[in-house]
């Protein structure tokens, strides 16, 4: 009975969202007064998060599986909860209720709110499905579903820009999944277990034939790029900046946390739990993916500096930061996985805090461009205080959380470089270059985040115009403050989390 509980956090929100949609369809928009809708959605979200919390504490790592149904032959769709999944699920479970709270205030005066919230809710369930997926096929199923439930959210404003953005998003996502599919087929065919289950260390049996090994490595690269589309890997990143046409709660949660982190998560599963690092370490595949991640880091950071629209700037920042995670993953060692996971968690908080701040400013004052923000910090002090913390952390400046994860990634890079050097591989310099790239990006981050802050704290010509703009109300402010608090907490007290991550990394790497 308790095993069935594994399926609840994924299915409950999906069902809830579907029911909401159906009721909306038959009774029209009048069925839900906004407050009732808000309470209902927040209630479901909170209950779901609590269930996830309980499951993590009691079920993680027990190896229990819950099979939903058989898709075809040996391919089962099933849930199971291990260390990696609990980290991701825990992260989502913490963030979602706060994000929903924020969205209520934000979407108060928009249209078709019921539709919006039903898809928002469904996305929660689907993302949990990805976290709980016990094998690659289940991951793929929920991965595709994620595209399907998030694109109506991007489409929501129904403006020309939104339509175009949702189209682009859809094409890229499906394209990525198509290439990832090739990877799944190969895993299925060459695995030692005969299915696509996630086992630390991978399940691939490369065989003795070097040509076959080369083919497998090539397919890994394809699948990396395929899953990497959702993680905004260069050159498949084009959808992310355009997706900022969606409302801020969507951009923030989905495209800075849920969707893009799902992509990174899928890459981690692919690398450490399907293909396995023993097969991949030191091969040309590792060089290619590491190089791609590095290129993305540079590209994202540089473009962010040049971008003047605030949300788009943050989107490019996401592209860059996501590839920090991918860079850590590409080190193919326990240290690398730990580093990637730490950045996954920390960046989620930093980026969602930044986006929510930007959203608060947009909501209160309508300003969207960086040069319009002069003196705003004096009108919205709490908001900008949170933004300051998030910015410092993003730039990797201690003592906030961002420094810890950058440190970890750099250390894993140096470690990988040393390992490759000892193994006599020619490309051992690449991880070191990776560390340099990381520092370059940190500098660029400082540039593009701090210029915003300095503008905000220095009013134009000493006057502060438009006194009617203030901090938003508690529904938007509380999540902001909580996120900033978490960033500070993790900065000063990261050791417990790192212990958990170390346990995961040690098994998998």
């Amino acid at each position, binding site marked *: 009975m308790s095993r069935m509980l594994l399926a609840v956090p994924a299915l409950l929100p999906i069902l809830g969202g579907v029911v909401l949609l159906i009721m909306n369809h038959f009774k029209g928009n009048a069925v839900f007064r906004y407050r009732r809708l808000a309470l209902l959605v927040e209630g479901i979200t909170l209950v779901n998060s609590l269930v996830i919390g309980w499951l993590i504490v009691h079920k993680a790592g027990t190896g229990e599986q819950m099979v939903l149904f058989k898709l075809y032959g040996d391919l089962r769709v099933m849930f199971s909860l291990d260390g990696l999944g609990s980290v991701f699920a825990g992260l989502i479970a913490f963030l979602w209720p706060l994000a929903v709270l924020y969205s209520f205030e934000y979407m108060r005066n928009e249209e078709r709110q019921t539709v919006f919230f039903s898809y928002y809710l469904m996305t929660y369930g689907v993302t949990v499905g990805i976290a709980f997926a016990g094998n690659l096929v289940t991951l793929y199923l929920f991965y595709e579903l994620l595209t399907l439930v998030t694109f109506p959210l991007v489409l929501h404003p129904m403006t020309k820009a939104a339509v175009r953005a949702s189209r682009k998003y859809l094409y890229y996502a499906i394209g990525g999944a198509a290439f990832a599919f090739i990877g799944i087929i190969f895993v299925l065919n060459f695995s030692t277990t005969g299915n696509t289950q996630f086992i630390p260390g991978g399940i691939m049996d490369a065989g003795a034939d070097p040509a076959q090994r080369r083919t497998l490595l090539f397919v890994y690269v394809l699948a990396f790029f395929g899953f990497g589309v959702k993680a905004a890997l260069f050159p498949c990143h084009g959808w992310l900046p355009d997706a900022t046409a969606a409302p801020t709660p969507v951009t923030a949660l989905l495209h800075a946390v849920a969707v893009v982190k799902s992509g990174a998560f899928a890459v981690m599963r692919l690398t450490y739990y399907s293909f396995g690092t023993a097969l991949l370490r030191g091969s040309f595949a590792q060089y290619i993916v590491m190089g791609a991640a590095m290129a993305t880091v540079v590209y994202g950071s540089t473009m962010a500096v040049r971008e003047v629209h605030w949300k788009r700037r943050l989107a490019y920042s996401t592209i860059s930061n996501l590839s920090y995670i991918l860079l850590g993953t590409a080190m193919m060692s326990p240290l690398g996985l730990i580093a990637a996971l730490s950045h996954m968690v920390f960046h989620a908080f930093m980026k969602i805090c930044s986006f929510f701040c930007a959203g608060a400013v947009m909501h209160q004052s309508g300003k969207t461009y960086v040069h319009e923000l002069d003196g705003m910090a004096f009108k919205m002090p709490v908001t900008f205080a949170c933004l300051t913390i998030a910015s410092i952390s993003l730039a990797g400046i201690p*003592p906030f959380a961002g420094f810890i994860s950058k*440190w*970890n990634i750099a*250390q894993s890079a*140096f470690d990988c470089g040393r390992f490759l050097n000892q193994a006599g591989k020619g490309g051992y310099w690449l991880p070191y270059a990776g*560390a340099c790239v990381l520092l370059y990006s940190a*500098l660029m981050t400082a540039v593009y985040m701090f*210029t915003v802050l*300095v503008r905000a704290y220095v009013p134009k010509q000493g006057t502060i115009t438009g006194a009617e703009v203030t901090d938003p109300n508690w529904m938007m402010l509380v999540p902001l403050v909580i996120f900033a608090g978490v960033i500070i907490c993790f900065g000063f007290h990261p*050791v417990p989390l790192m212990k958990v991550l170390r346990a995961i990394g040690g098994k998998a790497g």
Partner: protein
Amino acid sequence: MDGNVLLLLPILLPIVMGSLVLTAKGFRKNRKLLIAAVSGTLAVGVILTWAALMTGGRLTLWQMTEDITVALAVDGVSRLFAALTSGVWLLVGIYSISYMTHERDEFRFFGFYLIVLGVLTALDFSANLVTFYVCYEMMTLTSLPLVLHEMTKEAVMAGLKYLFYSVAGAFLALFGIFYLYGAAGSLTFTPGGVSMGLSINGHEGLFLGAVCCMLVGFGTKAGMFPLHGWLPTAHPVAPAPASAVLSGLITKSGVLAVIRVAYYIVGPDRLRGTWVQDVWMFLTLLTVFMGSMLAYKEPVLKKRLAYSTVSQVSYILFGLGLFNAAGFVGALSHVVFHSLVKNGLFLAAGAIIFKTGWTRTREMDGLGRVMPVMLGCYTLVSLALIGIPPASGFVSKWYLATGALASGTGVWSWLGPIILLISALLTAGYLLPLAIRGFFPGAGFDEGEIRSRGLGGQEPSWLMTVPMLVLTAGAILFGCFPGQLISMLESIAAAVL
């Protein structure tokens, strides 16, 4: 936390008081309260620092990762820097009580002034490289508002330049820290250097490269070429007291960083005779020369003093790069002397601006008739900086020169003293004219004119003149009676070399 909690107090008190000043509305309304709080904190701060330095010991603050702690400790170098910092901070603080009346938003200035003191003290007390780095970055961020204070477009541009140069330098140094974490046995500051793991054998190139990165990166704060560009822009644009501490003390944090890296982590034995030393010599001497030249040609007084800082701090770095006792003593003594002198110079420049509004030296003829005490102090500290005995600058320059000649670094051994000499001449050239023309303006000078041109043109109040006098006295007396200071420095040198 375990260890000597006293170490935390001189850090925490200013930071807490500074934050209170920034946020509590009471301080904005009531100036008397503000002044009382600030001066009280500074005074108590000196006492607490003294207490911490007397008791010594270590203090572990928190665990950053499983094997890196954030910790504080007291050793010879920290004693020197912390004592200097708290003392000068108090003096400049008293000065600014009067000076800041003609600026606005004083509470913002004082708030950050106090916070930076706390952070600097933490920097001085850092026990390992990571703690140091944390405080270093925090110091950049908290001193930024001081540069930005005027809120003009110029100030913003200068502030951003300061920020980005500092951050770039810090990240450059971070690369070295990353490397050393893996290569070194530990990152705790140990006199003479820590033991290095086997991984650097056969990879000396990478190791030295990492050290060079750290040198250049940390050297940014100290205004060393090639990342010095921010200094002449940022220092002048801040209010005078802020410029004073920026030039006088915050640049020294860059110096402290270099000391810690070279002498307490990597160890002088590993660097002596390598290409890193050559690069070091080259960069510092270039900066010395370049800074002096640019100062000589600069018409705006505060900018001239900023270029002077660029030049003088590289004297210190030069001395450190010699890796022998004389050079080390010369460098550290120059830390003390230059702090005193540069603070004094900036305070004087500030007094001039405060009382007359003039910024260019051309305008300042005949100043001595109006403000004799202040200009007298200016003249005395200038002499100290130039290196004329018995003023203090002579002592440090002597040690630097002897250290250079004895260092066995080939061409630098003799080139160094030559450059130092040229620079001394240039220093005289850019500092003395103001004093001379101030006291002896020559024919065609109209005293009445200067009184009417200025804002009442009198001596500034005691709040401003007393600190100046104290600094001047220090600059001269340390020159006449350097014994105690020198012996303390020699004992530190013996420990690390």
